[in-house]
């Protein structure tokens, strides 16, 4: 395979990826709005991650507590 035949499609893809805004949109979205949406995206994903790990955290602690209590309960075995 010649090196040159790959270069064009690769370059085209890189150019496409660099401009994530829609080519047909004529409007100026405003930098502030884009920054804000970036923050929202960040917050929402942080919230989603927190929600996921909170659940795992709770599970972890409630699981551990259960085994300790079982061990300490008199006369259950």
């Amino acid at each position: 395979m010649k090196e040159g035949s790959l270069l064009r499609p690769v370059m085209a893809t890189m150019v496409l990826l660099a401009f994530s805004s829609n080519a047909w949109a004529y409007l100026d979205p405003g930098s502030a709005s884009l920054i804000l949406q970036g923050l929202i995206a960040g917050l929402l994903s942080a919230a989603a991650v927190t929600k996921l790990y909170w659940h795992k955290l709770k599970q972890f602690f409630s699981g551990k507590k259960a085994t300790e209590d079982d061990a300490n309960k008199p006369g259950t075995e």
Partner: protein
Amino acid sequence: MPHTQHKESGLLWNAGSFKDPAGRVFERDGRIFRTMTAATAGTIDRFEASGLYQRLSDAQKLVRHEHLPINDDICKSVDTVWHAVLEHERLPYLSYAFEWPFSLLQRAAVFHLDVLLESLQSDFTLSDASCYNIQFINTKPIFIDTLSFIDYVDNAPWLAHKQFCENFLNPLILSAYTGVPYHPWLQSRLNGLPSTEVASLLPFKARLSVNALVHVFALAKIEGALRKAGPTDGTQRKNTLSKHALVLMLTSLRDYCANLRNPFTDRSIWSGYESENSYDDASQSQKAEIISGFCARYKPELLLDIGCNTGRYSEIALAHGATRAIGVDGDLNALEVAVARADKKNLNLLPLYMDCTNPSPALGWNNLERPGFKSRIKPDAILALALIHHLVIGANISMAMAVSWLVSLAPRGVIEFIPKSDIMIRNMLSTRIDIFQDYHIDCFLAELRQHASIESTITLDSERVLVTYSRPT
């Protein structure tokens, strides 16, 4: 309707359609057309293929269009730079956001977001969020910018967010929290109200909502900071917002807009208005009879009710022969009652906010972009009930000028003259010197005769006089 570039072929390019290079609107022989580039035509094809166009237009949420065949006369008369032409259904009239009562701007905001959310389900989005992309037919919003629908790019942020905030959210939130009408400001600021300015006017309690905090205050803070920071090096920002996050944000904002408190409605919306007149019931029914008779006889296609108040007489007119009515009034509270009336009784009525001593002017680029009230709305008949004393006595407009203006609006109409002996006028004059020598029934009729023929003059029990006029078109 103002246009530019009048070509020999008879095409009239719409002076308000120029910002989006994807297409432009023009008129010919009273028909409305829209040109498209090849790329845009491709988008429209996908828009139709997805079924989204059908769903929206069937639900009357989007104006219908037809594709013109390539060999059509109209297509041949446009420049070859345009790839295709659509023909649109014509709307009965045009109104603008700064004329809509609060509930209608609120309705338009929610409508915009609902259309956007529906579009996202079909992998489309809206390229902009201008309040001029929405029109009202009666009190129902309809989307008119077909070319706003573009392909949704995965994880692209909401590029129209800023415009939505400036056009819809900021005016609504300003009025909701301060009670001050947004209309004069929105009329002057065609691109909408800037977040920084609105944020500085809102009371503290506006910050108690997450949506306000994010879409007004945070946005304003960032805008302010960027302005202070000065120009950047101009590199393109790479921004991503997942579709899921976008939908969450839009849904939350939509609900927030829908729940904003309307400062112009009374809790008991009907109270206080029906009994505001100094009439007796007999006079009211006489008036109703005259108006019904007028409408039954002349069947106006579009009736303009000037000083419509709660829309009571528009309702009567519509029930007796008028096809559509636009009511204008300077009282935002009364207009909310009119909107409620139009909703509840499914009337062909659109209540609009306007000071008739200062009607909506021509605005925008070269003052042609957004035509003024008189060039946009051309009624077949007018109702000017309990109005003329507000012009002559209330606004110091001479009887000659007031009558001349009224008659210029439509070839037929019913005008009510209230004599000085009436309690309403006595109240108006109680704090002023009576300089209104021309405010007299004889002077009124004399002025009217200068411009029109008087069809009938009926004196009600209350001594008010209802005059019907007509003049050549």
